[in-house]
């Protein structure tokens, strides 16, 4: 099988996985919850029953033959549109990008689910990308050092970090960091960060003391917008605000990646071609970084698909601990008010990201390792 045939087959399967997931989520949110839940974002208590009924009809939840709103609420026979018919209409709207209204406020004001979600999503993306970056630049070197100094001090430290990463509750790690930097690591009698968060309207948190000028929202990602609009105080503030949340998010995956790199590196270092490279008189650094690392890094590439799922899931907790204005934080608010439109969009966007990343990882893996055949 050629590469493009393989990709085509995977894309084909991917559609079915996503469809099945959409059925599952639709059944959970619309089938198991009362049908009135779907109306929450559209009706107010002041509306009279006929107005509510026409909203329910317009949304495709109530049938046209339904006599009254109270009959709809009490699930009278023939009043609620069958679930599979609802699903058809919902899927059509969803694919057209029409995800209805939401009860949640957006960053920039508009009130459709799609806009609210994607005005917040860049913050989550920034957090997840920063988390992935930290995982790679800390986790991989940690694994390498651990393997090359097997059973010596660096190995013990690295294994401790890795074990700690697996065992530490992320919310607790984030809280400990906050307590340390706000209460106990003192500069001029107070913590490094200010406890009474003076949130200005124009920057996320203004550490630099200078309130920067209005920042254009090119991408919605604060770091990127800061650079693009050449607003360095804003960039600096966003970068400082990002460090602790990103570290908290990355702590678990740092442990996972370093453990995988360590074991595969140890496996590779035992092989004959490494002995050959050493006997040629190559420097140890060249042997490790040019010869061994290339093969040792492969298992780490395969789990990076899993890593994305880890980071996007962990973002929910980190966003709560650090009051990060991303979608994870909003999803909790959505869970409180039963805003099912938002939850559905959130789950499906995340699923698309993860499924596409997994496919990309498999393709990259095949490119890196010529032994792989489909």
């Amino acid at each position, binding site marked *: 099988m050629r590469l493009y045939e393989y990709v085509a087959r995977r894309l084909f*399967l991917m559609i*079915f*996985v*996503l469809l*099945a*997931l959409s059925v*599952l*989520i639709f059944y*959970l*949110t619309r089938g*198991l*919850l009362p049908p009135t839940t779907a109306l929450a974002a559209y009706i107010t208590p002041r509306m009279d029953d006929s107005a509510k009924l026409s909203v329910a009809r317009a949304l495709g939840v109530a049938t046209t033959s339904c006599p009254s709103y109270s009959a709809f609420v009490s699930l009278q026979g023939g009043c609620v549109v069958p679930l599979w018919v609802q699903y058809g209409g919902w899927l059509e709207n969803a694919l057209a990008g029409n995800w209805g209204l939401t009860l949640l406020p957006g960053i920039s004001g508009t009130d459709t689910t799609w806009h609210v979600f994607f005005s917040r999503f860049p913050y989550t993306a920034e957090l997840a990308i920063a988390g992935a970056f930290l995982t790679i630049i800390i986790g991989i070197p940690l694994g390498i050092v651990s393997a090359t100094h097997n059973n010596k001090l660096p190995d013990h430290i690295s294994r401790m970090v890795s*074990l*700690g990463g*697996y*065992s*530490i*509750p*992320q*919310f*607790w790690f984030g*809280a*400990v960091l*906050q*307590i340390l930097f*706000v*209460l*106990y690591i003192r500069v001029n009698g107070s913590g490094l960060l200010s*406890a009474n968060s003076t949130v200005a309207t124009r920057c996320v948190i203004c550490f630099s003391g200078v309130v920067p000028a209005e920042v254009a929202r090119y991408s919605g990602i604060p770091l990127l917008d800061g650079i693009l609009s050449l607003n360095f105080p804003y960039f600096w503030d966003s970068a400082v605000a990002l460090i602790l949340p990103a570290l908290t998010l990355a702590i678990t995956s740092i442990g996972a990646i370093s453990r995988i790199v360590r074991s595969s590196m140890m496996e590779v270092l035992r092989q004959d071609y490494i002995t050959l490279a050493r006997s040629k008189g190559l420097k140890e650094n060249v042997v490790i970084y040019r010869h061994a690392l290339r093969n040792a890094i492969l298992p780490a590439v395969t789990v990076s698909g899993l890593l994305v*799922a*880890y980071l*996007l*899931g*962990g973002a*929910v*907790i980190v966003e*709560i*601990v650090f009051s990060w204005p991303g979608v994870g934080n909003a*999803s*909790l608010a959505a*869970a*409180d008010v*039963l805003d099912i439109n938002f*939850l559905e969009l*959130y*789950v499906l966007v*995340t*699923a698309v990201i*993860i*499924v596409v990343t997994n496919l990309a990882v498999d393709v990259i893996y095949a490119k890196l390792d010529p032994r792989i055949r489909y």
Partner: protein
Amino acid sequence: MKASEPEELRAGAGYGRRADLKYALHLLRRNPIVLAGVTISVASVLLALLSPLIVNPTSWNQQPLNLRLCWNNPLINWQIANVFNCGGSVAVYPLGTDSYGRSLLQMIILAIPVDLEVAFEVVASAVVLGVFFGGLAGYKGGIVDEVILRVTDVFLAIPGILLAIVLIVVLGRSLPTLTIAVLITWWPYYVRLMRSQVLSEKEKPYVERLRAMGAGGIRILYGHIVQNSIYPVLVQATLDIGSVILTVSALTFIGLTPSPLLPELGNLANQGIQYIFTAPWLILFPGLTILIISLGFNLLGDGIRDVFDPRLRR
């Protein structure tokens, strides 16, 4: 023969269950870290079993308001302005009180069995589901395998915590639904693990011999193949107890809790996040308890893996 060399001891001790046990004990003595893991996990289970005897379970009711968020343990000075010192209460609260005026130490002791019970239920059910469906997928192959794998694909396509949030929202907030929500995100991993085990095990000659003797598929699969390939699953189960406690406490921490009063480690920490700079003990100690328990089970799992995985015996 040097007793400190596990490989040689292994060779000298021969094979079989008794030898494995002997080797396990040897590993325990040799490796203080594994010993620490065993100690922590056994101690936490014991503490969980004894907790109704140590702390009166009714003490998780709301206490007088003048005991809210106070600290009168002289051993730690938090160096925070205006720490409330329990209004001259005679009783000393070793870990302070929470936002309902309850002793945090008592609440943590009451919370450990709650978390451990959920974790054991989730892992045990996930193992059962994994063995059943994974075994079936690996042994039958073909269309059964394909269907089971695609179903797990669906569940693996979203982060577990997201699916759990949706499930708890839909099913309502209670301990059983919390357990079910975490279980639903957890079982696919066991299906995959068991399937890969069975795939390699079913090619072995003894399976063919059983088939020649006329044994039925169900008997071969669940009577013989599963018995011989379940060790990696059990090791994973031990490792996962820590992870499940982390997930459950994370879910209650973000507010998906049956009751704000319930003594559960994530729930206690959830109260604490509001008072993080005025009463830091309220988030520090429940989180530390979670860390210690999950560390204990992770170390235990690592140790058991060393015993059962011959490739790691060097």
